[in-house]
């Protein structure tokens, strides 16, 4: 497969992911079409399926954090590709399990933020399932504002805390 073909297939794949509800089409495409996006990735194994080692090697699968806008729980377009490759991993590895850890920034009440974190976790869970992951592979846990990665009170810090972390509990 030459580079031009791969780029084309990647963009087709991304379009399918962006379409969301058309995820069935992705599944029906021949295996090469679901090759993960990054062109820097080493060639996939002969079967075209993800294996456990890809979680450490694959450029897309190594991205495990999805960020959100203030008070929002909708998935931003730039994170669709990440969701796409993790969904493919779940399809390729039915025994894989993911915890989706939802988080919020420090503003507002702690218990309400538990709810916000869960909404964000649910948004990623829905997107993964829309792309072929199974609900039985996914567990949403909300930490609200209790697990910040940044503790300063400013927007650059807050936006790093409004996130869902994709944590593999079984590869």
């Amino acid at each position, binding site marked *: 497969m030459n580079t031009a073909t791969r780029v084309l297939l990647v963009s087709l794949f991304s379009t399918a992911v962006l379409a969301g509800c058309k995820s069935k089409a992705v599944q029906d495409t021949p295996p090469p079409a679901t090759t993960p996006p990054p062109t820097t990735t080493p060639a996939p194994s002969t079967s075209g399926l993800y294996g456990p080692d890809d979680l450490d090697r694959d450029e897309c699968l190594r991205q495990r954090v999805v960020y959100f806008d203030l008070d929002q729980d909708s998935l931003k377009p730039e994170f669709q590709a990440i969701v796409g490759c993790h969904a493919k991993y779940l399809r390729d590895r039915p025994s894989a399990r993911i915890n989706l850890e939802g988080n919020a920034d*420090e*503003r*507002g*009440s*702690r*218990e*309400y933020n*538990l*709810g*916000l974190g*869960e*909404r964000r976790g*649910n948004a990623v869970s829905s997107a993964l399932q829309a792309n072929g992951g199974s609900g039985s592979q996914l567990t*949403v*846990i*909300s*930490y*609200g504002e*209790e*697990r*910040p*990665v940044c*503790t*300063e*009170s400013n927007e650059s810090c807050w936006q790093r805390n409004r996130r869902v972390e994709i944590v593999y509990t079984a590869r």
Partner: protein
Amino acid sequence: MTNRLPMRWHALLLLTLLLPFAALAQRQGLEIDIVGGNASALPITIVPMPYQGSASAPQTDVASIIRADLERSGQFRTLPEANIVERPTRGAEIQYPTWRTLRQDYIVVGRVLDAGDGGYRVEYELFDVARQQRLLGLALTARANAMRDVAHQIADAIYEKILGVRGAFWTRIAYITQVGTGGNARYALMVADSDGFNPQTVVRSSEPLLSPAWSPDGQRLAYVSFERGNSSIYIQNITTGARELVASFRGINGSPAFSPDGRRLALTLSRSGNPEIYVMDLGSKALTQLTNHFGIDTEPTWSADGASVYFTSDRGGRPQVYRVAATGGGATRVTFDGTYNATPTVSFDGKKIAVAQGSGNTYRIALMDSSLGSPRWSMLSPGSLDESPSFAPNASMLLYAAREGGRGVLYAVSADARVRQRLVLADGDVRSPAWSPYRNSR
């Protein structure tokens, strides 16, 4: 017990969780800092109460504790000890012209005597200066380690005699502390006297703790712990240390709140896929679902009569306070001012509701007072990231959490917003304050 080697921490954590908190006295305390004043407060002099026994003098300065209690209530202005020019210890020794000159309305005199068994007896009297009339004359005995309790009880009696409202100084506060960040973070559920003294550890954890709530008898705390990975709710007896896991469902297990009769627990569960308010019968553990809405419903708190539950919901788009019957049914919106009102705390008479009110990036504690009919709003805190208000049982003051200089601190503020007192843990963050119910007389 407090000087464990760090390497042994994990091995002993479980054991620690099971131990009664009384064995786990913390070294760190809370700093006290009064940041405001009230010109219309009642002037009162608390004369130092000397030890007149024949054994060893108590460590505790009873008069200074009474003075600090009355001062931070916002209702009194106490004469600084340096200005107390005469030091009577009995009513007969009071020179009234002196205190009239100093424009004092009230004066309290007393002395500390031996009570046998190493204990003490505090005798005190309260006088109206203008009428030269004795309003109170009482004596309390206590062991040496309970002298702060005695001082708070005297402050309560003075407060009630003059204002006609039960004092709430002899109460406790629960709160969460965090030391360290990220993987090194260590959390503790603490209990202290209402002035921040005498802090005791109830539970330590390497995972987040939040939302402590008192049982009406003041013997148990419900709280949220992430020690099992997901949120779960425990109820712990703070005297014996015995604890029980009461909610560990799929999804959120949050916001516990005891009913006024102590038999039920309101809580937030998202086991249905979305956060809803439930009431758990603590005997049978049976659940009654109070809300059913796709919005986030959380932070339930009971009305004093137990008939209704206030909660936060964003069913209207943004978080606001709603009320629902404790048996379920339709919810009524309660707050209409402001775009973000959350974490309601309700006064004992149901007339005042305090919330964390957000506006842009500023969150302040706001009070909605319906004593005179239509609600009147006032701001109790300056912001900018204030949260978790909690009424004292007499509604004269509130606790809340704030961030200052990058750390979490607690404030106690009078309900008229005129006096604020900062309670700062010497090391780390403090948050999620909860004011206890009244304590029963010993």
